[in-house]
């Protein structure tokens, strides 16, 4: 009601900036303690079938939805 009476404050700016900053913090830091071991084991399994250069595992969080993305880089020379 009567939006022109409202002085626009900076709280909404704070919320937007925080949401983005925290999302990027979480991407960089929210990995599981077992991540390194899991990565090594996946490499072992894939190696049985095809040459592997490296594996990248990232955790994505979007609201309640969380996903692990596993990217396998193949080694053409192997």
């Amino acid at each position, binding site marked *: *009601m009567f939006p022109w009476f409202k002085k626009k404050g900076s*709280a909404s700016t704070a919320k937007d900036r*925080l949401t983005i900053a925290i999302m990027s*913090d979480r991407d960089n830091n929210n990995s*599981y303690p077992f991540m390194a071991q899991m990565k090594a084991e996946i490499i072992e399994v894939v190696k049985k079938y095809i040459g592997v250069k490296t594996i990248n595992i990232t955790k994505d969080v979007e609201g309640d939805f969380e996903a692990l993305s596993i990217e396998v880089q193949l080694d053409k020379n192997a």
Partner: protein
Amino acid sequence: MGNVIAVISGKGGVGKTTTTANIGLGIALNNKRCVVVDFDIGQRNLDMILGLENRVVYDIVQVMDGEASLSQALIKSKMNDKLYFLAASQTKDKTALQSEKISKLIESLREDFDYIILDAPAGIESGYEHTIEFADAAIIVVNPEVSSIRDADRAIGILDSKSQKVKDGAEVAKYLIINRIDAKMVQSGEMLSSSDILDILGINLLGKVPEDKGIIDASNQGKPIILNPNSAAGQAYKRIASRLCGEDIDMPELETVQGGFLQKIKGIFK
């Protein structure tokens, strides 16, 4: 078996020690045996807030190293005989805390008390990790301000990966306290509201505490503000302590300015 709760914040200066002192006393006022433990090694402050700085003889590191017994080091509060306090040591040695010794200390506190409240140091260094390591739950204290909220999220991330409960496959309970809320600023859109903060952090709200100038006076005197029946912050801490003791207490609206003429007019049009 007592319940071990770590009070954490990430950022310093948001009211972690004040919160620990008030919640501890509040739990004791609910007739439960409670001990508050200062884990801020090298920067002991909980003793001042509780008005017990002259009673400290032995500290937590001396107990862990076997130089003093737990009963020698525990200090009974002057304000409530169900509340006890264990001081941090003033040593600069950051390696003073070791997981094995902390675990042993916490196990013996669990036998003697219903609630064990651990006041964590600010930051996310080893002292912080040791505080949360054996906790069943954590209370996260934030101010409605960007750096406090961002640092709290980092501290929560570490809690979720380093606590023993999480390593054992269980979940560590997390409760949020929003401290130093200025209703007028929230109303005018100049301060993040509690619902904004809950959206961002995604954890459960334990309580809201309004900004209260009386906090300085309370710490000057070493008398936690929960003892002041006229203080809004004191009443907020009282409700929080009762919620922790399992009571179902309403969450009063602290973010609307009450009684103003304009407010009443706006109310009519809502």
